[in-house]
């Protein structure tokens, strides 16, 4: 299950999509809108924009890479777009695995790669009315053109 949605993310739905009696471990990750930006400005909310025709295939690629690297796992991945309030989840991942180490490692792989590779953009809205497009750190972004 891989999706981009304007609706609030529901972790239980993602967990149900990966659950099974062959799984001994289920790890989830949620990225949540914080009240402070990375440069410590007070945040009112975020807005995410995606290029779904490219983002969805790339999200599926990332899941397939993790499933190949960690045999026996299942992954569900959802990213929200549109306006988000403080405390709401922007991205949610559920990984079911035979054992916990591969569940943790696969879940971390998926969020790390998503932040580098998936064409989704974030605009922060600040107290006072300013807005700014915020990029993931350089080490977490695709190499740019020379």
């Amino acid at each position, binding site marked *: 299950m891989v999706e981009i949605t304007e609706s609030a993310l529901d972790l239980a739905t993602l967990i149900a999509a990966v659950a099974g009696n062959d799984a001994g471990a289920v790890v989830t990750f949620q990225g949540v809108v914080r009240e402070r930006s990375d440069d410590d400005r007070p945040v009112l909310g975020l807005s995410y924009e995606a290029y779904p025709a490219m983002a969805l*295939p790339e999200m599926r690629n990332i899941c397939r890479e993790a499933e190949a690297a960690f045999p026996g796992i299942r992954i569900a991945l959802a990213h929200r777009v549109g306006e988000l309030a403080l405390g709401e989840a922007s991205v949610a991942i559920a990984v079911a695995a035979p054992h916990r180490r591969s569940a943790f490692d696969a879940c971390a792989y998926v969020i790390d790669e*998503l932040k580098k590779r998936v064409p989704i*953009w*974030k605009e922060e809205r600040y107290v006072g009315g300013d807005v700014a*497009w*915020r*990029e993931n750190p350089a080490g977490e972004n695709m190499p*740019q*053109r020379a």
Partner: protein
Amino acid sequence: MAANISVRVLAFARVRELLGCAEWTLQLPPGATVADAWEALAERAEPLRALASSTRLAQNGRIVDGGAPLHDGDEVALLPPVGGG
């Protein structure tokens, strides 16, 4: 002389805001490249040039170099550095 090709260009995030439009339809001469599509937009909005080094180009959903040749009906996307997650 061959007919022009028609290319759809999608702009996202800060590139979209700078261009003032999310979706363009460009008529380009046969043999035009992805870089030519970029140049056609930069001529309409010179400040776009400041984003050249940070903007990736995709053709039909795949990242390409500027030299990639375009075909009628292609979709080109202008992708600033990503911020998802």
